């Protein structure tokens, strides 16, 4: 009889987790029925396609950059509009500042539903309604970005804004007083950080949403892919990669600075 050494509950839970992973994985793998020949053929195609990729051409670069700018602008405009809408609505929804509980509740549920639907689907719907183009992109993005901002704003208002809000309430301030003099000044920097983060996410999304018809660089990428033009596609991918990489670094910087300020 071996002497056990581990903490039973911790070990059991971890074992259970891995067991469930394996138990689910094996049948799922068989269910998907991946074909080895398809795999082999795909792999065999790699060198050929890689060769085509590496015929570097700078011809399309100006076009790519213009379309990239369009993508960024689509993101920018939808974030601007979203911020305005979200600022108005989040004070109506947040517990500490809600003027009417029932309205707040209904809005909350709507926000949850909107958030659950992936961005891509919103854009697809907007394109179906408005036709191809940047405006459909802005419209489609509006829903997920606004709901994201509302959710994060309300969380912040409820968490951080409590004291100042109560103080102003105690002094007999009106709802507008509470919002403009109490909550907004205290939460100014946090909101900015959230907006920066949201902007990064939205740019990452607009870049690809062109592929479903929302304008911007994605439209070009989709064309290249469907016409098998791999050389400019590589350029496009690099442009996108560099943009997103720089953006990620930038928002990391902003977040770090805001974090140290908060501390």
């Amino acid at each position, binding site marked *: 009889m071996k*002497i056990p050494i581990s903490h039973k509950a911790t070990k059991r839970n971890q074992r259970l987790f891995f067991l469930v992973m394996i138990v689910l994985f094996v049948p799922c793998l068989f269910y998907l029925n991946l074909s080895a020949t398809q795999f082999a053929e795909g792999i065999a195609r790699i060198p050929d396609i890689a060769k085509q990729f590496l015929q570097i051409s700078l011809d399309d670069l100006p076009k790519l950059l213009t379309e990239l700018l369009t993508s960024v602008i689509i993101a920018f405009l939808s974030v601007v509009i979203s911020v305005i809408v979200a600022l108005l609505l989040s004070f109506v929804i947040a517990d500490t500042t809600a003027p009417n509980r029932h309205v707040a509740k209904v809005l909350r549920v709507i926000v949850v539903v909107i958030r659950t639907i992936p961005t891509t689907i919103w854009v697809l719907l907007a394109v179906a309604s408005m036709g191809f183009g940047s405006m459909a992109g802005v419209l489609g993005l509006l829903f997920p970005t606004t709901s994201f901002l509302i959710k994060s704003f309300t969380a912040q208002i409820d968490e951080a804004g409590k004291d100042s809000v109560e103080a102003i309430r105690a002094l007999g301030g009106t709802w507008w007083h509470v919002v403009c003099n109490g909550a907004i000044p205290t939460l100014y920097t946090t909101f900015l950080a959230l907006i920066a983060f949201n902007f990064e996410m939205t740019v990452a999304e607009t870049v690809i949403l062109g592929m479903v018809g929302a304008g911007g660089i994605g439209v070009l990428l989709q064309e290249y892919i469907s016409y098998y033009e791999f050389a400019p596609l590589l350029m496009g991918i690099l442009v996108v990669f560099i943009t997103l990489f720089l953006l990620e670094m930038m928002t990391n910087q902003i977040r770090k600075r805001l974090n140290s300020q908060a501390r």
Partner: protein
Amino acid sequence: MTILLEIKGLTKKYNAGTVALDGIDLQVKSKEFIAVIGPSGAGKSTLLRCINRLVEPTSGSIDFLGQRVEKANSRDLRHVRSQIGMIFQHYNLVSRLSVLENVLHGRLGYMSSIAGVFNRYSEEDKKKAIALLHKVGLENEVYKRADELSGGQKQRVGVCRALAQQPQLILADEPIASLDPKSSAVVMDAIHRNCTEQGIACLVNLHQVEVAKQYASRIIGIKNGKMVFDGPPEALTDYHAALIYEGKESQMYQQQVAEEQPNPTGRKYA
């Protein structure tokens, strides 16, 4: 008495240019119980960590049982480390493992890499580890998770881990600095009693002179990286103590709990 450890001209400069240790010479004989005293920042902790090379010394020689530690390759270093137990101010237990597993970590240095990876501790080792825990009064905590224990209990687990190595030497770095007076006494007693019984030499960093005098067979005073006192506890007069702690007198008696607490969340941005 044989010479266990011989340090000559040990110097440590950190990258920022601060000199933590400045030419330390020290001989440790077997069965000695040495207290290293001095204010915080004097280099006590660096001295201990240089001995088993948790900190790489800049220059000087360290000889442990005929092995040149500062020149040892990774296999020899592993051998040296397995014979030197270490006790830490913040206990340094793996919080999500059981108390017994933490104690058994003391055996890793004697096992093959693979056996250690697969938890193949011998039954003999397990029995000994449990016996050690009984001895320090933790018989009811053997299968608890390390993060369920109080500070004093955690440090006793830390002591057992060091003893499980069956070491020649124990390095204790401020073992009671984070504990209340009552737990401090329990922990110091456990270290002292076990070292004496099993003939283990011990180097213990302390900043409370009173505690040092109570337990040590020899006291070393360190100030600004230099050794300024070396002698039996009786020889350490108030004058010497005052000299060692000049400018930082308040640390002589105080519990220094607030100052060196680990970052509680353990996050890297702190």
